[in-house]
C-alpha cells in the first residue's frame, strides 16, 4: 500500500513555457565540494584565465568529481562563501568576462556510440551528479558493474512549489528521449518508464507525441501524492516489486530527469554541469519562475533579475522544497548542482509544539513504516535500535501531519544520526 498524502501543491505559479536564462553574473563563486568531499587540489591561481567548463580543482577522495568553472574569465581569489547547507565553504571566485569561451570539443558525438567504460569516464569528468538534491556522483551508479534491466526516469517531483524537473522535461523532451535510448542501448536495458505525476498531464501529452519511435520507452503517470517520488515507492508502484532498500536489488535504476539532461550534454558535447534550471517560487517573489542559471551565482542576483521580492521584509528562503528542504541563512548563498529550487515565503508554519495527543497519525503515514513518536519518546537504547530510526528518509510527513506540531522529523533525524554514529 502506498502511504503518503496530498500536500499543498502550488506548482502552477512558477510554470512557464521556457526557462528564463540568467548568464550575466559579474562573479561566480564555485564551491569546492563534490558530494561530501571538501579536500581539493586547486589547479588555478589568481589572475589565471579560465574557460567555461574548464577543470579548476580535483579531489582524490572516493565519490569525488572534478570542479568546473561555469564562466570564462579571470580567477580572482579563494574566499569562504555560504554553501547550500549554510556552511562557509572555500570557493573559487571567477570574474565573468561574458565571452562564454569554451574549450573546443570538436564535432558533436553520437551518444549511443560509447562503451560502458567510456560513459562512466565521461560522467565522472563532467561532474554529473544527482540533481534532485542528493549530489551523489552519477558515474558511480553506472560503473557498479551490475546488470541494469529496467530504468525509471523520475520526473515526479513530489515537493510543493518545485517545477524544475517539469521544465526540463518540457523544454528538452527530444534530448531526454535520445539520452534514454542511448543509455538503454549501451547498458542493454530492456525497459524504461518515465514517471510523471498525474498533476503534470501536459507533460504526459507532450511526451506521448515524441515517444512513438521509442518502442521500449513508456510514460506512466503516478498519483499526486507526496513521497511518490521516493525511488523505493516509485519502483514498487511501477513494477509491482518489493524493494528492501534500493531498486538496484531488482536490477532497476532510478534516474532523475534533470540528471538525464546533464548526461545528454556530457555525452553529446562533453559539457560538464556548469548551469542548471532552478525553480524560484513562493509568495515573497514578484515573478516566480524557472531560471537557467550558472553554478556559483549568488541567489540574490537571480532573484533581483526576475523582479526581486514583493516587500522589503526579508523572507524565509527554503532550498529544495518546503518538505525536505531547509532554510537558508542568507540569499548570498550560491547556486549549486544539487539546488533544484529556492522558495521565498513571507510566512512559514512556526506553530509551537504541544503535548502529543497520541493520535497515531505519524506512525500511520510514515512511508517506511517507522513509528516516529515512539522513537522520540523511547528511553531504552535497545528499544530505540529495534525501532530502526536509521531507516528514516527525512521526508517530513510525520511533522507535516502531526496535529501537535511536534518537530518529529528533526528529532528522529537527530536520533538516527546518533544511532548511526554508534
Amino acid at each position, binding site marked *: 500500500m502506498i502511504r503518503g*498524502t496530498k*500536500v*499543498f501543491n502550488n506548482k502552477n505559479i512558477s510554470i512557464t513555457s521556457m526557462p528564463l536564462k540568467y548568464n550575466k553574473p559579474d562573479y561566480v563563486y564555485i564551491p569546492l565540494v563534490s558530494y561530501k568531499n571538501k579536500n581539493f587540489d586547486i589547479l588555478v591561481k589568481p589572475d589565471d584565465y579560465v574557460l567555461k567548463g574548464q577543470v579548476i580543482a580535483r579531489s582524490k577522495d572516493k565519490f569525488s568529481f572534478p570542479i568546473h568553472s561555469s564562466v570564462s574569465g579571470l580567477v580572482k581569489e579563494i574566499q569562504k562563501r555560504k554553501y547550500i547547507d549554510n556552511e562557509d565553504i572555500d570557493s573559487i571566485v571567477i570574474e565573468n568576462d561574458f565571452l562564454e569561451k569554451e574549450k573546443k570539443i570538436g564535432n558533436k558525438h553520437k551518444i549511443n556510440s560509447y562503451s560502458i567504460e567510456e560513459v562512466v569516464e565521461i560522467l565522472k569528468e563532467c561532474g554529473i551528479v544527482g540533481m534532485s538534491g542528493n549530489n551523489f556522483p552519477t558515474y558511480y551508479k553506472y560503473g557498479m558493474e551490475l546488470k541494469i534491466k529496467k530504468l525509471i526516469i523520475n520526473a515526479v517531483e513530489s515537493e*510543493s512549489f518545485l517545477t524544475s524537473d517539469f521544465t526540463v522535461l518540457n523544454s528538452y523532451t527530444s534530448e531526454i528521449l535520445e539520452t534514454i535510448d542511448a543509455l538503454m542501448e549501451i547498458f542493454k536495458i530492456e525497459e524504461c518508464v518515465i514517471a510523471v505525476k498525474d498533476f503534470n498531464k501536459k507533460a504526459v501529452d507532450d511526451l506521448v507525441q515524441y515517444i512513438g519511435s521509442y518502442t521500449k520507452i513508456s510514460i506512466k503517470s503516478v498519483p499526486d501524492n507526496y513521497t511518490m517520488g521516493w525511488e523505493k515507492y516509485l519502483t514498487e508502484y511501477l513494477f509491482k516489486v518489493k524493494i528492501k532498500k534500493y531498486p538496484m536489488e531488482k536490477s532497476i535504476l532510478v534516474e532523475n530527469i534533470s540528471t538525464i539532461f546533464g548526461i545528454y550534454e556530457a555525452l553529446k558535447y562533453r559539457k560538464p554541469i556548469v548551469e542548471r534550471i532552478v525553480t524560484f517560487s513562493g509568495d515573497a517573489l514578484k515573478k516566480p519562475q524557472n531560471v537557467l542559471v550558472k553554478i556559483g551565482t549568488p541567489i540574490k542576483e537571480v532573484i533581483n533579475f526576475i523582479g526581486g521580492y514583493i516587500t522589503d521584509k526579508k523572507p*524565509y528562503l*527554503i532550498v529544495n522544497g*518546503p*518538505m*525536505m*528542504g*531547509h*532554510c537558508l541563512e542568507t540569499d548570498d548563498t550560491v547556486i549549486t548542482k544539487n539546488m533544484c529550487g529556492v*522558495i521565498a*515565503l513571507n510566512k*512559514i*508554519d*512556526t*506553530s509551537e509544539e*504541544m*503535548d502529543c*495527543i*497520541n*493520535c*497515531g*497519525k*505519524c*506512525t*500511520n503515514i510514515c512511508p*517506511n*513504516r*517507522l*513509528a516516529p*513518536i*515512539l522513537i522520540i519518546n*523511547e528511553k531504552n537504547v535497545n*528499544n530505540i535500535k*529495534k*525501532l*530502526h530510526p536509521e*531507516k528514516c528518509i527525512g521526508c*517530513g510527513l510525520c*511533522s*507535516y*501531519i*502531526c*496535529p*501537535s*506540531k511536534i*518537530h518529529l*522529523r*528533526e528529532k528522529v533525524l537527530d536520533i538516527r544520526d546518533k544511532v548511526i554514529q554508534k
Partner: protein
Amino acid sequence: MNYGPYIKSENNNDKIIYNILISLIPFIIYKIYLTNLTSIIYLFITIISSVLISIIFDAFKNSQSYKFNFKNYIYPVIIGTIIYLFIPSNTPLFLIILSTIIGTSINSFFKNVNPVLIASLIIYAYFLITNNNIIKLDINIFILIGISIISLGYLILNRSVKFRISFVFILLSLLSLLIAEIDYNNIYLLIILGLYIIPELYSTPNTAMAGILYALMASITFMILPMPIFLIFGIIMNILNRYLDLNVAFYLVKNN
C-alpha cells in the same frame, strides 16, 4: 531555529478536541430526551467535577507559572460528557461526583488510563455490589443508528477519531449482540464505547495494527464478560497498550 517541513497540515489538537465535542452533541440531546430535562444537571455535574479536578491538578503541578485558559479544559469537558452518556441514569449523585473525581485524578497522573473506564467501573461495581437494578434506556434503534452515523461520519471527515478501532470494536461486538439477543440498551452502550471510550486518543496504541489488535481484544472481552469485569480489562489493556504498540512497531519496521 526554524524546523522543516515549512508547510504543515491544517489539522491541530484544538480542532480534533473541538470536533470530538461537537460530535457528542447529538448523543447529549438524545440522552436528555430519553431521560428527562433534569438529567442535564448530571451532565453539568460530571463536566464541572472533571474540569475542576483538572484545574486543581494543573495548578498544583505548575504552581509557579499556572495561568487559567479555558481552551485547555475542553478535554475534561469531553470526559465529563462521556461519563454522563455512559453511566446508568439512576446512578446516585454522590457516586457520579466521586467516580468522576477519581477517574479524572488518576488520569492526571497516568494519561494512558482512560478516566471514563475508571469512573464507569466504580459506578457499575456499585450497582453489582448493592444489587440495585440499572434502569435501561428506551432506545429507538433508528434514531441511535442515525446519530451514530452522523457523529462517526463527522469524526472521520474531520480526521478526529482512530476509526479502525471504532469499526473493529463496533462491528465485532454488534455481531455478537445480534446473535445473542437484541438489547437496544446494550447497543447504545456499545456505540458510546466504540465511538468515544475504546478509541480514546491517549489510552490507545499509535500504530494502526496495534490499534486493531486492541479493538479485537476489547470486543472479545465486551462480548464474554459482564460490564464491571470488562471495564477492569479495559483499564489493564490501557496500561499494556504501550508494550503492544512497541512490539507491533518492532514487527512492522523489521518486516518492511
